[in-house]
């Protein structure tokens, strides 16, 4: 036997004063009595037990010394060498993914898993260490290796629920790294996984060594929204499309109603009748310039709530004032602009005076887009401008010779301006050769001829963006091609900035990158749908946020009271594995709990010594109260 704290033996010296006190004769209390007749009868009857009377005091001393010995023994924390050899390193992997929020077992699968985990912690032996890892969204060490059961209980209780996916294999791998010591001996290592098995990688962990799976949950049917996305139409400026997918993850037919509303106004109701394991998917086309929050719901009470609701953010579309300056007029150009649902078109023959730049009424935040056809004022006025076939130069470029039959050989497909556009098969008999001045900065050539002459150039100057198309629209078939209205639409969207971009609804547990406006001046906060607030790193224009482990709308707001969100992100469960609440066959059924280890018997030796000391103290108290000892 060894002692973890041999210094505790010093306390054994307390035996000396105890013995001294017993050796010293204690003065008895004198009590007068009127006659000793009766007492004499009592004690003379007990004469045969006089030996016991003498031993009584010795017994009292022995009890005291034994009590001290037990306490000193407990202080030294003795242990056997086999205890060290038999010590286990246990990792409790608890699945806190979205499917664990299912309520098929009361109150939920996660709560049940925690309850089982608490029992496992109670069963730890004295020298055992345990760590806790949460396997939802991202494997996370909730509590490092410790043998302190109260700490383990507290950390297990604090494991949060999430709507994220399950990461069992990664968690078990992390557990393996956590428990394997430097020698790499896997002896007495055990990984206990508390899961419902609703994960892609469940089969993988069933084959691993030292992994014990404890099943939570029953085979339960569920209907969930597995996909819900919205995007603006590429053709219709105010149109948008909704991608929906609903799956019946049950073994029987289910009837329910699928509803979609935009900012609270119902826009679609679909009665569904889904056979077992049937998937219903549909793309819905709607129109709305306003945009907002799209919410999809299934009116069915099932075990998992998270996938009965999905959200998506539809970008708002704003009307754009456009001033077409064309001395000769171009019907194609005019009609293309008029056809755009968001354009408020004005047509003039001559450019407006520089002293009164065209503005859209009192709306100072929106610059009027000026389209210069042939005529270009010098210098080019501030504000966004689309220049088509310029006849003259300005402060940004000089006009050169005409280019005959330019063939488009270079096209920047990555630019949003060139999305869905192909110019290589467009007949363009004539174009203008341009030479850009240093004031133009770095022109971004979106399309160029074989000879290198730029045909479509974007300038991003501080006074406003400029897009220059050098092709003569009167010649060639560009106005007749679908590429032309798409180019105009892309151009208008480019001028409008990112306000019309697609904002994808992310799956729960995702990590995404966001752009922050005016990063140096402000502190931004990320507000979760459940009210949680995370600080974003200050002073950066681009940052990564996540994992977004709760379904709903996440908001990035300035750290100021009452501030409006600067950006919103929709987050949905959108995970087929999590929505399917039917556990795999390999999952142990509920009730097959892990064999409890030692319980009370697994305590350290000092614990038993302490218990013995307390029992002895109780015995001494009992004996003293009955004056069997002094």
């Amino acid at each position, binding site marked *: 036997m060894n002692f973890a704290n041999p210094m505790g033996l010093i306390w054994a010296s307390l035996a000396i004063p105890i013995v001294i006190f017993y050796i010293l004769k204690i003065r*008895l209390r004198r009590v007068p009595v*009127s006659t000793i007749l009766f007492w004499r009868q009592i004690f003379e009857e007990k004469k045969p037990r006089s030996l016991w009377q003498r031993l009584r005091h010795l017994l009292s001393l022995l009890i005291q010394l034994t009590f001290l010995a037990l306490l000193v023994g407990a202080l030294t924390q003795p242990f056997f060498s086999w205890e060290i050899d038999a010590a286990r390193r246990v990792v409790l992997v608890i699945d806190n993914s979205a499917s664990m929020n299912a309520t098929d077992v009361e109150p939920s699968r996660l709560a049940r898993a925690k309850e089982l985990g608490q029992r496992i912690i109670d069963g730890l032996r004295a020298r055992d260490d345990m760590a806790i890892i949460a396997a939802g969204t991202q494997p996370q060490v909730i509590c490092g290796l410790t043998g302190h059961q109260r700490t383990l209980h507290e950390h297990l209780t604090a494991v949060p629920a999430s709507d994220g996916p399950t990461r069992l294999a990664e968690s078990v791998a992390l557990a393996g790294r956590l428990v394997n010591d430097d020698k790499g001996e896997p002896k007495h290592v055990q990984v206990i996984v508390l899961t419902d098995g609703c994960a892609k990688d469940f089969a993988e962990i069933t084959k691993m060594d030292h992994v014990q799976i404890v099943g939570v949950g029953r085979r339960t049917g569920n209907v969930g929204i597995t996909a819900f996305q919205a995007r603006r139409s590429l053709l219709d400026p105010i149109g948008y499309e909704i991608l929906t997918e609903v799956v019946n993850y049950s073994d029987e037919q289910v009837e329910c109603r699928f509803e979609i509303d935009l900012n609270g106004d119902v826009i679609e109701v679909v009665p569904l009748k889904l056979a077992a394991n049937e998937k219903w998917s549909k793309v819905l086309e709607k129109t709305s310039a306003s945009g907002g929050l799209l919410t999809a719901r299934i009116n069915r009470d099932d075990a998992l709530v998270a996938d009965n609701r999905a959200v998506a953010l539809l970008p708002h579309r704003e009307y754009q004032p456009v001033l077409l300056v064309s001395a000769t007029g171009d019907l194609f150009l005019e009609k293309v602009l008029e056809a755009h649902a968001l354009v408020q078109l004005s047509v003039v023959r001559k450019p407006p005076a520089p002293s009164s730049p065209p503005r859209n009424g009192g709306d100072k935040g929106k610059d009027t887009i000026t389209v210069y056809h042939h005529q270009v004022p010098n210098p080019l006025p501030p504000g966004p401008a689309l220049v088509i076939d310029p006849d003259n130069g300005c402060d940004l470029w000089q006009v050169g010779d005409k280019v005959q039959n330019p063939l488009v050989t270079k096209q920047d497909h990555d630019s949003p301006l060139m999305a869905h556009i192909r110019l290589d098969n467009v007949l363009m008999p004539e174009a203008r050769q341009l030479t850009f001045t240093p004031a133009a900065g770095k022109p971004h050539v979106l399309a160029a001829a074989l000879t290198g002459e730029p045909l479509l150039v974007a300038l991003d100057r501080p006074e406003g963006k400029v897009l220059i198309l050098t092709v003569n629209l009167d010649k060639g078939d560009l106005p007749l091609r679908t590429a032309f209205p798409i180019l105009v639409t892309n151009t208008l969207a480019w001028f409008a900035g990112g306000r019309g971009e697609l904002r994808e609804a992310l799956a729960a547990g995702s990590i995404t990158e966001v752009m922050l406006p005016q990063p140096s001046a402000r502190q931004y906060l990320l507000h979760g749908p459940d009210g949680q607030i995370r600080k974003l790193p200050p002073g950066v224009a681009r940052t990564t946020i996540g994992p977004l482990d709760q379904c709903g709308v996440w908001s990035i707001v300035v750290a100021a009271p009452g501030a409006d969100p600067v950006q919103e992100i929709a987050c949905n469960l959108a995970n087929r594995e999590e929505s399917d609440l039917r556990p795999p066959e390999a999952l142990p059924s509920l009730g097959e709990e892990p064999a409890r280890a030692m319980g009370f018997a697994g305590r350290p030796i000092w614990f038993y010594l302490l218990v013995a000391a307390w029992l002895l103290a109780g015995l001494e108290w009992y004996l003293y109260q009955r*004056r069997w000892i002094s």
Partner: protein
Amino acid sequence: MPLFDSDFLKKLEYLSLVSKRLFRGTLLAQRRTMQLGGGIEFADHRDYTPGDDFRYLDWNLYARHDELLLKRFQEEEDLHVYLLLDCSRSMNFGVPCKFNFARQVTAALAYIALADLDRIAVVAFAEDIIADFPLTRGKGRILALLSFLENLQPQGADTNLARVAGGFVHRNQRRGLAIVVSDLYDPGGFERGLDLLRHHRYEPHIVQIYDRREADPTNMLGDLELYDIETMQGRKVTITEKNLRQYRKLFEAFEQSVQRYGNQYGIGCTRTSTEIPFDELILKMMRAAGAVR
């Protein structure tokens, strides 16, 4: 604080009045003897015989029936009451002190007897007779008696009731009521002394006094040194709950032995705790018909 103050005397007077009104001579004095003689209370008639005193002829009866009958009267004889007061050190115990209580009871009984025209004597004893208040009569002697009682002190090393009774019965005195006021803690046994009184045709009555702490000792657990205040003997003991229970049983057995002795020989026996005021005890004794007679 004096033992016999004015309140005490008032209570004595009250007890005296109560005894007359309620018991009309059945307590102590006015005990009629069967001797007929020169009393004043009519008893019966007998035939006249020559030589009888003519003053006792019932002339009314002679006038009606023409028959000479002589009236007979019952002769009254006063009672001798001997109060044997235990003055041993064992009486000097308890709250209130048993000795004081015994002296109050003795004084009260003596006063009632004197008020009933009986004769009383007080014999103070411990291991032997230590003091005497001679036979006396009349309420006027009560103050002298109180003074005698007040001057008594607890003394003696060992109560010996047999020796006391032996000395008492061999005195040349009339027989009468012998009231023993004592705790009866006699190492040799109280019975021998009382037997002597009985055998010498005294009519004993026991007033046994004890303190509540004697009957039910408390705060006596653990290692103690008990010392007898009478013999001054000490004993180191360890008292347990079991010992206390044994003690209570022994004490109860002792009390029952006293009662049993009284019942066996038709002796009046009054056992009392000092917690009861002495006047209530006297009333209790009065109510117990024949307690003194």
